[in-house]
């Protein structure tokens, strides 16, 4: 069994197989997003205003579990590290602007697409706003390349820790923090998931 696992390497599918797999994965992803109420504005607003905690708990758990899975599988060479280069100030400024935007519209790109699919026609305005932002950034790309995109130094790539379960490994801290936050949300807030029409 261990020798079989040791032989597993990333698949790195060819373009056509990649497209087919991406569509299938997208279908599953869209299904799970709706199940988790991620594209439902009412549920998102309840979570953002700390009146419910279901979506926050799902998000925290997905990051904590994903971090642990990646650390275990990367150590065995089953998945490789694939991150884009990041800079301190653009990341911080980007988080600030995106946070302000989500407070207004309660969606990020993939949840806006899922929201439109769930019949929320008003999500079309969110997608139009996003399209306009891409147009503006493309138009101002030369100016941005010489200013904001170069602010601060490039952030270092993550270092692998030799031991998975040691306090020197950030994965352990992420698990502890996420676990504590999930427990706090579990006891302090209700889930706030939207009931289907048949159950109302």
């Amino acid at each position: 069994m261990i020798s079989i696992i040791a032989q597993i390497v990333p698949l790195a599918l060819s373009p056509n197989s990649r497209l087919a797999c991406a569509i299938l994965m997208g279908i599953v992803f869209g299904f799970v997003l709706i199940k988790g109420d991620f594209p439902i504005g009412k549920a998102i607003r309840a979570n953002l205003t700390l009146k419910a905690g279901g979506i926050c708990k799902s998000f925290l758990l997905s990051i904590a579990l994903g971090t642990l899975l990646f650390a275990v599988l990367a150590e065995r060479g089953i998945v490789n590290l694939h991150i884009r280069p990041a800079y301190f100030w653009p990341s911080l400024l980007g988080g600030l602007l995106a946070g302000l935007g989500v407070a207004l519209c309660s969606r990020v790109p993939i949840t806006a697409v899922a929201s439109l699919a769930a019949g929320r026609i008003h999500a079309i305005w969110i997608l139009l706003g996003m399209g306009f932002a891409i147009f503006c950034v493309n138009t101002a790309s030369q100016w941005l390349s010489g200013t904001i995109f170069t602010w601060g130094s490039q952030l270092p790539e993550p270092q692998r820790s030799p031991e998975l379960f040691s306090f020197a490994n950030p994965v352990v801290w992420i698990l502890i923090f996420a676990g504590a936050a999930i427990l706090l949300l579990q006891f302090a807030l209700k889930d706030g998931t939207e009931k289907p029409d048949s159950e109302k």
Partner: protein
Amino acid sequence: MSIKSSLSGPWPFWITGAVLAFLGIFMLYLFDDALGMSDGMLMIAEFCKTSAQEKAVANPPPLDWQTGFLGGIFIGAIGCAFISGKWKIRFKPENTPGGMAVGAGKAILTGFCGGFLVMLGLQLSGDSFFGQWISAMQLSAGSWIFLGVFIATSIITSVLLARRSGGKS
């Protein structure tokens, strides 16, 4: 729990969270590439721009794995919304105060401005939200900075906005 009830009924947070984590890492294994929708969205924007300039759709929309993934999300979300009874036609967000015209006007304003700010932030940070989420699992410092500031800003702003509107939004 039967398959039918598990498909149509609500899922607890731990199932949703676990499935999302497994899906993200499984995609990393399948594609062995940086995951994120930013390139796909740039291609769609470029396609819309070309079509608008030529006032005709000469070629079909670009189809690679990123745009295919977005299309898959649309299909999966429609299917799940119908199965779960969450499919509702709405022209304005739920609980928006005011009549149809006022509500739709607010939806246009908040939706367009909100969407603009979200995408502007994502473009500045250099990746889509999906890409930031996957990168955070890989312990990318930039993604953790982005997500930390994003979560803090969105919660503080939402609480302030809710207070200002007397908890109606």
